C-alpha cells in the first residue's frame, strides 16, 4: 500500500517530478467520479437534471453523515459496525416517543443522547477492556438492533407531519442540495480541517499507524478513541432522525446493512482499513461515487441485487487496486530504496 492515499504525508518535497507520487488513490476516485457523472449524464437524460441530483444527494444523507466519524475511526485503526443499528434504534425511539405524544423538539435531543450513550458503550468496551473494535461492535450491532425491536417491535410509525419531512428534503434555496446534505458539507469541511490541519488529526494518523509509538509520544490514545466512538454513535442517531423523517416512517429495521455501505464508501475513498492513511477528500469522492452509481442503476431499472453486486465489486476493486499498484511500484522502487540507504550511509 506504499502510496495509497497520502494524507498523512501531506506536502511532498517541492520541485521534484515523480509520476508515482502524482497518482494518489483519492485523486483516482475523484477522477472516476467525474467520468461516471458525465458518462451518466450522457447515458440518461433524467440523470443530469436538478430534481434528480437533489434526489440522489438526499438519498445519500445518512451514508454521508455517518461516513465522517467512520473516516476518523478507520484512520485511527478502529471501526464501528454498530452505526446502522444505532440508526435503527434511533428511528424506533422517534416512532415510539412520537406515538406517545411527545413533541419532536423534545424527542430529538433525547434520541441523540441515546446515540451518544451507545457510542460511549462501544468506546468504553474498546478502551477499558482492550477489546478489538471489530469484535465489540459486531456484538453491539446485534444488541442495539435488538433494543430497537424491543422499543418498537415490528410495527411502523408513519404519522409524522409533512413539515418535518419537508425539512429533510427541501433544497437550500438556489441549489439542488437538500438541507441534510448542506449540513453534511459543513461537517465534512470541519472534519477535513480537524483531520488534516490540527494536532488531533496528526494524533489520529499516528495512532492508526503505530499505536504504541503514539502512546509513548504522550498522545491520549484512549481518550481520543472514546471521543470518536461517542461521536460515531451521536451522528448515527442523528442520521436515524433524518432517515425517519425523510421516509416518514419509523421502523426498527431501518437502515439494515447500511454500515457496510458506509465502510465501502470510506475504503473506496482510499482510507486504509489498517489505519494510518487516508484523506477526507477521498472519502467525499467515495461517498459521491457510490451515490452516483446507485442513482444511475436505479434510473436504468437495474434490480436491487445487481446494485448490491456493483457496490461490492467497486469495494473489492478499491481495496485491491492500490495493493496491486503498490506491489508493482515496490518492485520498481527497490532500487530507489537502496539508493536512499546508500545516501544515508555516506
Amino acid at each position, binding site marked *: 500500500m506504499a502510496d495509497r492515499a497520502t494524507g498523512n*504525508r501531506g*506536502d511532498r518535497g517541492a520541485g521534484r517530478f515523480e509520476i508515482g507520487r502524482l497518482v494518489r488513490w483519492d485523486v483516482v476516485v475523484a477522477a472516476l467520479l467525474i467520468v461516471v457523472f458525465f458518462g451518466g449524464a450522457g447515458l440518461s437524460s433524467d440523470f443530469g437534471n436538478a430534481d434528480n441530483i437533489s434526489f440522489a444527494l438526499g438519498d445519500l444523507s445518512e451514508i454521508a453523515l455517518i461516513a465522517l466519524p467512520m473516516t476518523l475511526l478507520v484512520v485511527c485503526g478502529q471501526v464501528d459496525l454498530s452505526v446502522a443499528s444505532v440508526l435503527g434504534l434511533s428511528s424506533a425511539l422517534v416512532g415510539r416517543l412520537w406515538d406517545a405524544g411527545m413533541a419532536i423538539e423534545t424527542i430529538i435531543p433525547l434520541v441523540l443522547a441515546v446515540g451518544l450513550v451507545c457510542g460511549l458503550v462501544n468506546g468504553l468496551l474498546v478502551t477499558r477492556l482492550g477489546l478489538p473494535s471489530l469484535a465489540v461492535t459486531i456484538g453491539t450491532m446485534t444488541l442495539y438492533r435488538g433494543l430497537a425491536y424491543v422499543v418498537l417491535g415490528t410495527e411502523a410509525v408513519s404519522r409524522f407531519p409533512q413539515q418535518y419531512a419537508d425539512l429533510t428534503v427541501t433544497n437550500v434555496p438556489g441549489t439542488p442540495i437538500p438541507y441534510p446534505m448542506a449540513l453534511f458539507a459543513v461537517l465534512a469541511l470541519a472534519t477535513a480541517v480537524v483531520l488534516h490541519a490540527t*494536532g488531533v488529526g*496528526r494524533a489520529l494518523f499516528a495512532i492508526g499507524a503505530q499505536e504504541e509509538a503514539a502512546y509513548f*509520544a504522550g498522545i491520549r490514545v484512549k481518550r481520543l478513541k472514546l471521543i470518536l466512538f461517542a461521536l460515531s454513535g451521536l451522528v448515527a442517531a442523528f442520521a436515524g432522525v433524518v432517515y425517519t423523517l425523510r421516509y416518514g416512517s419509523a421502523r426498527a429495521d431501518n437502515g439494515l446493512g447500511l454500515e457496510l455501505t458506509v465502510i465501502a464508501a470510506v475504503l473506496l475513498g482510499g482510507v486504509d482499513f489498517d489505519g494510518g492513511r487516508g484523506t477526507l477528500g477521498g472519502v467525499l469522492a467515495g461517498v459521491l461515487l457510490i451515490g452516483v452509481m446507485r442513482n444511475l442503476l436505479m434510473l436504468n431499472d437495474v434490480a436491487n441485487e445487481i446494485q448490491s453486486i456493483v457496490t461490492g465489486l467497486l469495494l473489492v476493486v478499491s481495496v485491491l487496486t492500490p495493493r496491486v499498484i503498490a506491489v508493482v511500484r515496490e518492485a520498481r522502487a527497490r532500487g530507489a530504496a537502496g*539508493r536512499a540507504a*546508500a545516501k*544515508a*550511509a555516506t
Partner: protein
Amino acid sequence: MSAPARTAPPALALVDVSKSFGAVRALQGVTIELHAGEVHALAGENGAGKSTVVKTFAGVHRPDSGEVRVDGRPVTFHGPADAQAAGVAVIYQEPTLFPDLSVAENIFMGRQPRTRFGRIDRRAMHAEAARLFERLGVALDPQQPARGLSIADQQVVEIAKAISREARVLIMDEPTAALTGQEVARLFAVTRTLRDQGCAVLFISHRLEEIFAICQRVTTLRDGTYVGTEDVADLTPDDLVQRMVGREVAALYPKQHVEPGEVALKVSRLTREGVFTDVSFEVRRGEIVALAGLVGAGRSEVARAIFGVDRWDAGSVEVNGRRLPPASPTAAMAAGLALVPEDRRQQGLVMDMSIERNMGLTQLRRLRRLTGRGPLISRRVERDRAADWALRLQLKYARLSDAVGVLSGGNQQKVVLAKWLATEPSVLIVDEPTRGIDVGTKAEVHRLLSELAAEDLAILMISSDLPEVLGMADRVLVMHEGRLTAEIPRAEATEETVMAAATGRDGTVGEAA
C-alpha cells in the same frame, strides 16, 4: 594479511565481487575468504554492505561481476536452496522457529527420520537432536516446544539445524544483539566448538569487543568497498574503528565533568508487583546516571513506570519537586520528562510517517501555539523546526517528507532524540540509546548526551553496553532481579564491579568477553 599458511582453498569465498541495485553500488570489488576452522569477522558501519555480503553468500543475491567460490571452485547460487546444498547456513539475529512444534521437530522440519511404515520416527528424531546438542555442548530438551525459548536458545536450535544439514559454513548476522552477557558466553563456546570441528564461521557484530574475543581475522567494508582483511591480533579497537569509519573517530565517550545541580528526578521506593521492588534514586541536573544490569533485570520497566507508560503499585516519582500522577505519559511530559524508548521501531517512531511529522508528534500543542492560528498546525513551522533539529543532530536524509522508515538505524535514533529534545525536557531518560547503530553515529550520540548534560539536563541512561556505561556515566546504578543492588561512583566503576552487582555475585565475572 599475514594469514597462516593454508594448503586447502577457502571453504567459501567472494572474489572481487561487485553488486549494484539500480544506481546504487552496494558492493565494489569485495573479496572475502572464509577458511575451515576460523571465525572471520565482517566489520563495517550500517550501510557498508555487510548485509549484501551475507545475502550473496546465502544465495539471495547474485553478483554482477566477480565470483562466489566453494572450495576454490566458482559456483553460481541460483537461490538460497543452492547455497544450503553447498553447506552454507545463516543464523539471523532473531530466528524464526515454529512456536508450536518441539525443538527436535524444528530441527528436522521437512527431513524427519521415518519408521519402516513411513511414519515419523520420534524416538530417532529426539535421539538425534540430543546428540546434536551434546556435540554443541548445550543443555536443551529436544521435546520442549519452541514457544517460550529465549532468543539465545532459539539461535542454538538454528545452529543445530544447520549442523544436522552438514553445514560447513555458518554465517552469524548480529547474533548477539539481543543476548545477555551469559548467553553471549555460551554462544561463543558453541562457536568455538564448531570452529574446532572444522566449520568456517562468518561473524557480524556491532560490538567490537566481541570481534576481539572470538574472531581470528576481520574483513572491513566501508561504503561497499573492500578496505582489507587482517589478523585481529594485529589490531587495536581504535585501528578497527578507523578502518570502518575511514577517519579518526573522536573519543567514543567524551563525557565531561559537570558540577551536578539540584535534584531533577527523584524516585522513591517505586514498586511494581512482580517486576521491580523498592527502587529509589535521584538524578541531578548536569548528571548522567547509568542504569546497568542484565537484560530482564527490570531497568526498562522502571523507566516505563517513571514515564507513566506502565502503572506502579507503590512509591512516588518527583520531577523538579513536583509529584507525578501514575500512568500518565502526558503528565510526565508536561512536568519536563522525556523518554527515548528501547524499541525504536515500535515505540519510538511511527515508521510510515514522515521525518518532520514524527518530530512534531511530541509537540502538537507547541506547533499550534507558535502559529497563532488557533488550533491549526502550521506545516511551515513544523518543517522549519524539524529542519533545525535535523541540522543540529546532523541527520542524514533526502527530504523531511520522507518516511522515517527509509533512514538507517542511527539516523532513526537521531529522529527519536530530536522529537524528545524538541519538548525541551529537564529530565531525559534514554533506554539503550546506541543499540544497533554504527560506530560513527554512536560517537555522535555520546557527544550529544554529554553536551546536553553540560546544558543542565538530567540524564538517566539505561544501557547493556558496559564500555558505554563506564565511559558516559557520572554514577552507575545497578539492578539485579528487580532491585537496585549497587550505586557506584564513576571513579570506582569498572567492568568487574558493575558485573558483580548485576549478576548478584561478589566475584568478578568477565562473561561478555
